[in-house]
């Protein structure tokens, strides 16, 4: 039986997403079965970088305009400084040969990590399935997460 790991990515910041993917890729490399649930601001991590975000209603349109998301658009949780901090962090990461968030997403997906998007947040914020990258395996709610989490010992909220 494979050890099961569940991660909840609630945050929509690059550094926090990187930490989550770091653990996910590590766990997959240890032979563990990893599922990441993306909810609330965390959905921004798995949104496509290209294309418009379609949604209905003035408030949702406004929200999705300000909260566009996409792995390349995520801010840093500290020292973002209108993008200057993020640019510097990106440079440090490249110097350290550390994968970008995009590369981490691809590596994790390639290593068998499952991506689940929260349908409640999608419904509330008016984000459709088409807004997400194709690596997203399924769309589900809290019961799916709890069932998975119940089978494993390692469960983190990021």
């Amino acid at each position, binding site marked *: 039986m494979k*050890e099961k790991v569940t991660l909840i990515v609630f945050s929509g910041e690059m550094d926090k997403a990187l930490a989550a993917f770091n653990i996910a890729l*590590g766990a997959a*490399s*240890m*032979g563990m079965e990893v599922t990441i649930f993306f909810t609330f601001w965390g959905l921004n991590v798995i949104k496509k970088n290209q294309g418009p975000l379609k949604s209905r209603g003035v408030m949702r349109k406004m929200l999705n305009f300000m909260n566009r998301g996409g792995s390349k658009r995520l801010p840093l949780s500290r020292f973002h400084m209108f993008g200057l901090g993020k640019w510097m962090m990106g440079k440090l990461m490249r110097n350290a040969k550390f994968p970008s968030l995009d590369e981490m997403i691809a590596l994790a997906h390639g290593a068998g990590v499952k991506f689940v998007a929260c349908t409640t947040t999608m419904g509330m914020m008016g984000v459709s399935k088409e807004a997400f990258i194709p690596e997203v395996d399924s769309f589900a709610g809290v019961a799916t997460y709890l069932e998975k989490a119940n089978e494993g010992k390692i469960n983190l909220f990021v």
Partner: protein
Amino acid sequence: MKADASLDCVGLYCPMPIYQTAKKINEMKTGQVLEVIADDEGIKADAPAWCRITGNELLGIEEETGAYKVYVRKAK
């Protein structure tokens, strides 16, 4: 120590050496030995932990100036 394959992880930080090791070991045959060369100090603790969880055998870690050589035998 003699190895059947070698993996250069110099300059890579966690979790990349572990990820690369897992990938390489997957391609190898049971009983073969993999040499992992890394310079991130974390490998000293991470390689044994990885072996304990995955069931592969840690044959030893050699410390050289500026790099660690980790030897892992594929279990199954």
